[in-house]
């Protein structure tokens, strides 16, 4: 029940989140903006186009968008956003979530390589650099949180945080929050790591991989990317501000209330991220590993703190 609600919420709400973030950015830059519904209108436009694939590409190219969207939907069902209970509870641990997200990224990178264009390869290689630095940090920072609870099950971690809200402001938790926030920005291709609105092919990371996609395939990728963003932001809020989440066997009303709360929290976080981006600039590519290494260090400190300060 909660899981179904989560998937629907993420699937429908994610493009709106992207639209809202663009709108915040536009307003802060003094532009009118295209409106919150624009990503959905773009998706509708893309879906109506004929499917087309470049010459010489095979099933890897075609399967990548499906795999990307599929993995995100599974993650959306598994991670605690609205409810901490999930029908997939026994597999809903942090390793499964990180592995699923990595699977989607790797599928897209392989799809980009399958086009055998210079941009596909370039984007894939850059994405792998980012991925290789991001995944251990996600693992470590959630690991720091799991030490306290004694399990890597995300539902249990969040439930214990709801039971003991003050634990959230422990040094371990704050360090892990900072580390996870940085990798969320990197993983979703936001400034300062990547610029989602650039037209400069040579600077792209995520966009360079999807340059050859068009029509419904592109729509699927855009949609999946938006869902990744909202799932990661949702995970961030659930881990560090879990108030309002439905625990145990909550009733329909509690679930709906939890859904409203999580929408508000994710929207707020997204707006903050968009507002922060206005004042940021994109890092030189070779500085990105430094940033991500910094976030890894914070995650490592979080693990250490959770052992020594517990």
């Amino acid at each position, binding site marked *: 029940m909660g899981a179904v609600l989560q998937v629907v919420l993420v699937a429908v709400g994610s493009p709106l989140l992207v639209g809202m973030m663009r709108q915040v*950015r536009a307003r*802060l*830059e*003094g*532009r009118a903006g295209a409106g919150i519904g624009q990503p959905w209108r773009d998706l509708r436009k893309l879906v109506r186009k004929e499917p087309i694939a470049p010459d010489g590409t095979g099933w890897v190219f075609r399967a990548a968008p499906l795999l990307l969207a599929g993995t995100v939907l599974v993650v959306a069902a598994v991670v605690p956003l609205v409810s901490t209970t999930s029908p997939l509870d026994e597999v809903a641990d942090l390793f499964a979530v990180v592995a699923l997200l990595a699977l989607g990224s790797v599928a897209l990178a392989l799809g980009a390589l399958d086009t055998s264009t*210079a*941009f596909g*390869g*370039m984007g894939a290689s850059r994405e792998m650099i980012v991925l290789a630095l991001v995944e251990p940090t996600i693992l470590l920072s959630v690991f720091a949180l799991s030490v306290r609870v004694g399990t890597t099950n995300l539902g249990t971690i969040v439930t214990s945080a709801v039971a003991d809200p003050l634990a959230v402001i422990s040094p371990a938790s704050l360090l892990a929050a900072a580390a996870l926030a940085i990798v969320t920005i990197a993983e979703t291709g936001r*400034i*300062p790591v990547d*610029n989602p*609105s*650039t*037209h*400069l*092919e*040579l*600077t792209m990371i995520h966009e360079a991989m999807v*340059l050859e996609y068009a029509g419904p395939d592109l729509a699927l990728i855009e949609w999946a990317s938006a869902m990744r963003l909202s799932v990661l932001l949702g995970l961030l809020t659930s881990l560090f501000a879990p108030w309002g989440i439905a625990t145990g066997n909550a009733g329909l009303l509690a679930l709906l209330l939890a859904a409203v709360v999580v929408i508000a929290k994710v929207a707020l976080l997204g707006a903050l991220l968009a507002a922060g981006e*206005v*004042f*940021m*600039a*994109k*890092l*030189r*590519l*070779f*500085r990105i590993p430094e940033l991500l290494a910094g976030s890894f260090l914070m995650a490592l400190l979080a693990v250490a703190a959770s052992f020594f300060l517990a």
Partner: protein
Amino acid sequence: MTPRTITPGDLTGAATELIARGHRLALMSAHQQARGFGVVYLFTAPGLDHTELHLHLPPDDPTLPSLARVSFPAGRFEREIRDLYGITPLDHPQPRRLVRHHHWPRGWYPMRADAGPPPAFGDPEGPFPFLTVEGPGVYEIPVGPVHAGLIEPGHFRFSVVGETVLKLKARLWFVHKGIEKLFQGRAPADALPLAERVSGDTSVGHALAYCLAVEEATGTAVPEEARSARAILLELERLYNHVTDLGALCNDVAHGILHAHAGRVREQLLRINDEVTGHRLLRGGVILGGAALRALPDPARLAAIGADVAEIVELALSHTVVADRFTGTALLRFEAARDLGTLGYVARASGFDADARRDHPSADLGSFTPALRTGGDVLARFQIRADEIAASIALISWLVSRSASGRSTPPSTDRPASGVGIAEGWRGTIVHRVELAPDGTLARVKIVDPSFFNWPALPVALDGAIVPDFPLVNKSFNLSYAGNDL
């Protein structure tokens, strides 16, 4: 001006001597004569009268000795003339095609009198012989000629290891428009709109250089107030383009907020342009024999804009990430800037002090001194624009009181004549050379945009830079495709 007719044998010696005396080859123009071809070498030097060397070549199998070893730009002019006229430079170190389009038929030279209408596309010459860089891990990234953004066509071939650029080859000339040929046969006044449209963002620069050339050919004396008014227009053009570039450089490092503010300032400047000339891109302000202004710009408003721009620059450079992206990126050394013959802000950001406003003044600019930076990196090219914006506003304020519309009519003449016009457009020194037929129509117009000199500097500056920095570096040069590809 003193044209000297010279034989092919004496050319290298004469050119070497002129260059040793501080001249630069500003323009090389071929034209078809009754019997054979004429080639004009225009040398200019700061504060001196320009010198022309005239070479006559036979109609069959015309060749000329290459000056590529004496002057780097000469080598490029020779390749251009070879592609457009079929005049072969002998012993050229880089005998590859330059302007010639991949699909032009072999033996077709578009600038010759018998070229006829453009022929159908074929594939007669084969692909351009790009130098393949070999080694472990080296790969090529071909970009363009069609790009994701709204920019003009150019093909860039990167040879890359990891993200580091080993070699960049830029191929332009995808949209040869035949502008120089369109000038031929028109009355000078009828061709002025064409000159304004050589490059959309440089309408004053090209119109002014063209008018100066025609006025020299016809012996027209322009009233002093109109000269000042033209100088104002030239600075207004520099202002709006430099402000655009400052914003675009910020945008290329994803600092969008300053781009938005630069766009706001640019709009104010375009509206001032509209008030001054009736056209947002300043068309119609420079006319043959004078200038036609609807109003003079208000120095107080420009001063307010100057303060606004200074704040944008301050905000950009105090942002650590923006400063980090600019600093040390794509260094163009002084020696390279000088040897390649770069012009405009590209040269002045590398400490190479070349500015036609001081070196070849067409109006009294008072105590104007061009800005100069020595860094040679993207930061210096950002800062020189900021410096020039401040200098331009100060210059306009000084000029406003002594400017007015006005024109003088040219004395009638019935003999063939030629003239040279030099103007410091916002990108750098623009040179036009016109030849008038006995009936007063244009026999030959040669246009040289500073981009023709500056394009080769881009790959030199990019040596050792990383691929994702290329768009930023390219924007810091901001060279013209349209003005280059005539």
